[in-house]
């Protein structure tokens, strides 16, 4: 269990962290989610010991490690650009943590071999990092971090520098790896989809504050505020509230609490259909529906329909 208590960190003019206190349960996969410059990377670096907080404490399993240097914390840290040791082979990169601990050579060789197999790089053990692809470098960095059997694995934007296809592959792979090795993992991301897909717990961070800390579906369905609502999914504004566009119902006949609106634009995005609507009074809004629903309503641009918010407990927050 990692507990962060009231951590603040100031960089010159900007307050990167402003009294944050999230915690990370043992064995969980936690995402620090937020816009860039929101403080999520600073929080990860404070947990790692790469950055000292101005105030507050960091506890690992109850031990106060706030003043402990990174090398004594038992962490594995994967940098955004992997920070490969350029002059060393893949094998020596992975062995580094064990070599500096002066473990016996045969043990190091065995462990490195196991890890390279785990990340699928055993064929490339003699290569230099410059001879690897981005995804391979990423996996090498992971193996290197795992070699020292860390209490917690910390990943800074692990997929940020990769192209979309590789990113999706690696996401699925990391998910399986986490199930396999069961190490407490915290990763930073600005991509809400990535956080939703991978994490068991999402910590939404903005302007140096924790906006919400909950399971992905909780964050999506019961967002704590307007910011979280807007950051973790699409929103549209109805009657002074923010709601999810898929919670907007379109009726062909007048219904209870439904108001008249004209369809100004229809976008067919494969399975999904997005309708832009202009009510007789109030702001324009967006509705998201399935292709089947759209066909049943025979939706067309210029058509007059009746819209209302799905009464079955939709996520909504007051808009300012």
């Amino acid at each position, binding site marked *: 269990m990692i507990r962060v208590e009231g951590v603040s960190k100031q960089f010159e003019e900007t307050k990167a962290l402003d009294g944050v206190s999230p915690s990370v349960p043992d064995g969980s996969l936690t995402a620090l989610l937020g816009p860039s410059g929101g403080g999520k990377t600073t929080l990860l670096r404070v947990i*790692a*010991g*790469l950055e000292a907080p101005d105030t507050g404490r960091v506890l690992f399993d109850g031990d106060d490690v706030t003043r402990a*240097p*990174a*090398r004594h*914390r038992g*962490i*594995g*840290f994967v*940098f955004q*650009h992997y*920070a*490969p*040791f*350029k*002059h060393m082979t893949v094998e020596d990169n992975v062995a*580094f*943590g064990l070599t*500096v*601990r002066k473990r016996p050579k045969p043990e190091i060789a065995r462990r490195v071999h196991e890890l390279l197999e785990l990340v699928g790089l055993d064929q490339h053990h003699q290569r230099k990092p410059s001879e690897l692809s981005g995804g391979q470098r990423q996996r090498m*960095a992971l193996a*290197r*971090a795992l*070699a*020292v059997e860390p209490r917690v694995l910390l990943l800074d934007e692990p997929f940020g520098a990769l192209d979309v296809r590789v990113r999706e592959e690696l996401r699925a792979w990391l998910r399986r790896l986490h199930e396999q090795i069961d190490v407490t993992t915290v990763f930073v991301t600005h991509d809400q989809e990535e956080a939703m897909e991978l994490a068991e717990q999402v910590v939404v961070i903005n302007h140096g504050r924790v906006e919400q800390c909950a399971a992905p579906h909780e964050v999506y369905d019961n967002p704590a505020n307007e910011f979280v609502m807007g950051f973790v999914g699409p929103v549209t504004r109805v009657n002074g509230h923010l709601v999810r566009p898929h919670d907007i119902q379109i009726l062909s006949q007048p219904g209870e609490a439904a108001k008249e609106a004209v369809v100004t634009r229809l976008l067919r995005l494969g399975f999904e259909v997005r309708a832009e609507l202009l009510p007789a009074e109030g702001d324009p809004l967006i509705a998201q529906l399935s292709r089947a629903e759209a066909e049943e309503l025979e939706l067309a641009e210029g058509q007059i329909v009746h819209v209302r918010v799905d009464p079955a407990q939709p996520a909504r927050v007051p808009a300012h």
Partner: protein
Amino acid sequence: MSRIGLRTAALGYLAALVLVPVGMVFYRAFEHGFAAAWEAVTTPQAQHAFYLTVLIAAIAVPANAVFGVIAAILLARRDFPGKRLLNALIDLPFAVSPIVVGLALILVWGRDGWFAMTGVIFSLPGMVLATIFISLPFVVREVIPVLEEEGNEQELAASTLGGNAWQVFRRITLPTIRWGLAYGIVLSSARALGEFGAVSAVSGRISGRTETMTLYVEDRFQSFDLTGAFAASVVLALLAMAVLATMLLLQRRTA
């Protein structure tokens, strides 16, 4: 102007200013035959001068390498009060004339100086100090850009993996800066071997005792022993060329 014209102009300029004078030194050295030149550079004074030059460089260059790496790491990786001052001070030897450096050392270490002490001025320690001073900036100035370009992520990664300060330096920082460091050492060596002014001021120029190669060349020249002067110059030039060749090899490694 055509490309060939440009080339001819550039080569002609170089030839007139560099090749012809250096060629003349070689020509005059061997004017009276190889044997005479050989004899001139194997006199006890010449041998001692050669030995002294190499000895001074062998002390000054490692000292500068160690200081240079420490200073470069401090300047590139740390923030501390007086950082800008240190940064500016390191370039001072580039700006100050060597003869001024020599006189300054006499003021500090000489008979009436602050640290008045016998055995510094007019002897080896003084000459080493002067050489260290004038060849100080090279390693620092070659290593800092490498450290800045590489950033500190590899070092941070090594420390998260459990490396202590020495292990991180030895296994990550040093291999990272190795070509910059080697290049700085080469430049520093070239400067140390060829130094005249500062060493001249503090050495006292005692033949066979405190005379380096450059001082020996001047001494021979003033004594109208032209073969001796030119033959010793050839030895200096060959040393410099060896350094230059090392530099070219290093440049090819880093490119």
